[in-house]
């Protein structure tokens, strides 16, 4: 009963094109689940369905046992779901610290406070989170001018600020260098295991996927075509043909780091 996310027979089509077709999978506490597949396979649609941005045509999504039917993204968030975006979405007119403070304000339902100065609220909590993801030295810089890798870390801090039980990460390491990617994912794995958060992420970097995922699901043309441990997916001929190509799949990391 430690399932943070259960997806059953999920389908969604856009103008006749079946973007997600009868997809089912689940995710447990403290686990990292990678969703891979060719571009246009329906990964982003899947994410937006879980997140509440889109409504499914059919099928159910349960987060921490609750059916999310009809919920808006902000309601899904309130269930304890953090999200990072493929193209980073931060408040560019605010500093790094203020971005994280915003989440605390929202968590504590103080966004309509008209009395206090924002600068004084939840400062220490936000700072602590920045320290956790390693961008505390940048706290006073505007998010709009941050280096990309740091921005991704800020996104992680924002996603973690309401102590989520489920983390949705859409291409968390896109646009980063190899070493940076691995570092960010190591950090993420450590945090999610410490706080026993379930993570669903998409990724095109196989070093990241095979280095950190506990399980992998593969989508193609909206359908789930393979599911299993990294070992199992690596050996799958069909996946190799439609996705890996000539790419030499790296060996799996020994888990339990």
């Amino acid at each position, binding site marked *: 009963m430690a399932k943070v996310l259960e997806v059953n027979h999920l389908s969604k089509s856009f103008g006749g094109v079946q973007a997600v077709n009868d997809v089912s999978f689940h995710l447990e506490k403290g686990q990292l689940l990678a969703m891979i597949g060719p571009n246009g396979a329906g990964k982003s649609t899947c994410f937006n369905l879980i997140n509440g941005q889109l409504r499914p045509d059919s099928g159910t999504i349960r987060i921490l046992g609750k059916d999310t039917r009809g919920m808006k993204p902000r309601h899904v968030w309130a269930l304890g779901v953090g999200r990072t975006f493929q193209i980073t*979405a*931060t408040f560019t*007119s605010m500093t790094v610290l203020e971005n994280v403070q915003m989440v605390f304000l929202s968590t504590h339902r103080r966004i309509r406070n008209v009395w206090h100065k924002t600068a004084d609220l939840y400062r220490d909590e936000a700072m602590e989170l920045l320290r956790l993801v390693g961008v505390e030295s940048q706290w006073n810089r505007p998010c709009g001018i941050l280096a990309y890798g740091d921005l991704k870390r800020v996104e992680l801090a924002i996603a973690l600020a309401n102590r989520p039980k489920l983390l949705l990460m859409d291409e968390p390491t896109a646009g980063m260098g190899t070493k940076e990617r691995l570092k960010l994912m190591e950090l993420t794995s450590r945090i999610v295991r410490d706080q026993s958060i379930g993570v669903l992420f998409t990724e095109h970097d196989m070093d990241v996927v095979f280095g950190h995922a506990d399980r992998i699901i593969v989508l193609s043309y909206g359908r789930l075509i393979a599911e299993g441990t990294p070992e199992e997916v690596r050996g799958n001929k069909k996946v190799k043909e439609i996705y890996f190509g000539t790419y030499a799949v790296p060996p799996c990391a020994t888990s339990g780091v």
Partner: protein
Amino acid sequence: MGFYIVQFLTGLSDASSLFLVAAGLSLIFGVSRIVNMAHGSFYMLGAYIAYVIIAALPHTGISFWGGILLATLAVGVIGIIVEIFLLRRLYRAPELFLLMATFALLLVIQDLARWAFGPEDLIGPMAPGLEGSINILGTLMPTYDLVLIIAAPVVLLFLWFLLTRTRWGILVRAATEDREMLAALGVNQKWLFTSVFFLGSLLAGLGGAIQLPKGGADLLMDMNVIAAAFVIVVVGGMGSIPGAFLAAIIIGELGSFGVLYLPQSTLVMMFLVMAVVLVIRPYGLLGKPELEEGSGESFETVMRPAPKQLRLIGLGILGVLILLPVFGGKYQLVLFGEIALFSLACMSLYFMMGPGGMVSFGHAAFFGGGAYAAALLVHYVRTPMSLALLLTPLCAGLLALIIGWFCVRLSGVYLAMLTLAFAQICWSIVFQWSAFTGGDDGILGIWPAHWASNAVVFYYLTLLISVGGILLLRHLLFTPFGYTMRACRDSRLRADAIGINVTRHQWFSFAVAGVFAGLAGGIYVFSKGSIFPDEMSIPRSFDILLSVLLGGIESITGPIVGSSIFIWLEDKLSNLDFWRLILGCIFIVLVLAFPQGVGGFFGTRFSHFFGEASNDSNPIGKD
């Protein structure tokens, strides 16, 4: 039966020239993102120039149609001149500044036309060979109007061909999406822009010229047609030419039949239609949602409290204002009082426009709404001034809550146009419900209470309320409420993903802006002693908008600087004969010299001067 057919056909022929103007406006907006306020002026010029040319030539078919053609081309050339010498210098400035430049142009052209063609309305010449009428089932229909009907479908077909079947059209459509990429693919967009502006102005000129036999030429044409053209473009969907065609027919027919059944509705009918369409279809009939999210290229300034030196200067100015009665006369007290309350009105617009990210073209609804609320309270229930001033912001806030509920569902230009529509609806209610509001005659005799009737006391009251309001708005910006407003503006996606109800928060912000605009309106009515529908009209809304833009929306000082300049200029110029020309020229010079707004300019300089770390506020892309 014949009567209704003729009425229907008349609607179509009205739609024809409206469509030409709207199509041009839509093209220009699509490519350059310019909300071209001067587009109606090109329409007016088309009519005047055609009149002059045709009058100078012998009355033959060739000279009539030749005159129309020449006038059309002439307006196209004027468009080119405007684009090259004015707009081209401003493409790097924010879109709203281009709006300001074109508004200044509208003022300039209005006075130039008066100077060149005289103030009298001109009656257009008949088209040779088409003077007569055709009998349709017993009702007469002017032949020329029938010919006009053909113009719109012909132009629609021509534009469709141009946009989908020619290289030029493909480039234009590409430019509406991504200009920088187009340049990187080797397209010189300068000339593309010029050609689009040429075509757009030409269409407006043609629209003005062909309606000459029907409607003649007068100096109010520009304002009348620009409002209709905006409505059509928005109802049809920004950038959609077929949408504009459809909308032009709807508006044309509404005008034609509306006169029959609800003659008093003509002023407001099209705005009502726009409001309904936008509420049901937020992007117009055939429009597509704008892809604003995701481009993520806009970087807003980080808001920090003003540096100490600037605060000291502010305190200094406040000190001078407090001491003003000591050395200033009554004239100065009235002038500075007006500046103060107008600053509050501008500040309230800045509040929703800058940090709130919601541009309003109809802010006078709340300013005038507050003023009318106070006037009506005093007039009908003899409310004492202090109580009226307390209730006024509440009334304006309530109005803003109602209007805002619809508006915050939209964004960008659509939101702005919906505020304009509601403001116009409010205006027409006040204008036409004369039994209650006094209509055009306004409400008179709303004087301050006895204790405040002294000029000095009233000045202090005005100052207290205005400065207090401004400081309160400033305070709000630094509270979680203000931060959340900016969060909603910066990234809707992210705000939603951290549990913020974006629409609701924007709704509240909208209402707060209404409250303070209403407060300013409340003092205004007591300072003048009377109120007229003008205070709710489109020009009033634009006064407020222009002042904010003039000051710049980069900083809180902007709207104060802008409104001070505006009121001062108005005071100095309004008695001169060609004051629009002068004001327009001053605006153009200011826009060219300070493309970030005057306040923004000095704000930046100021920080440099005192070595403030303002480099953080520069827009910087990743890597």
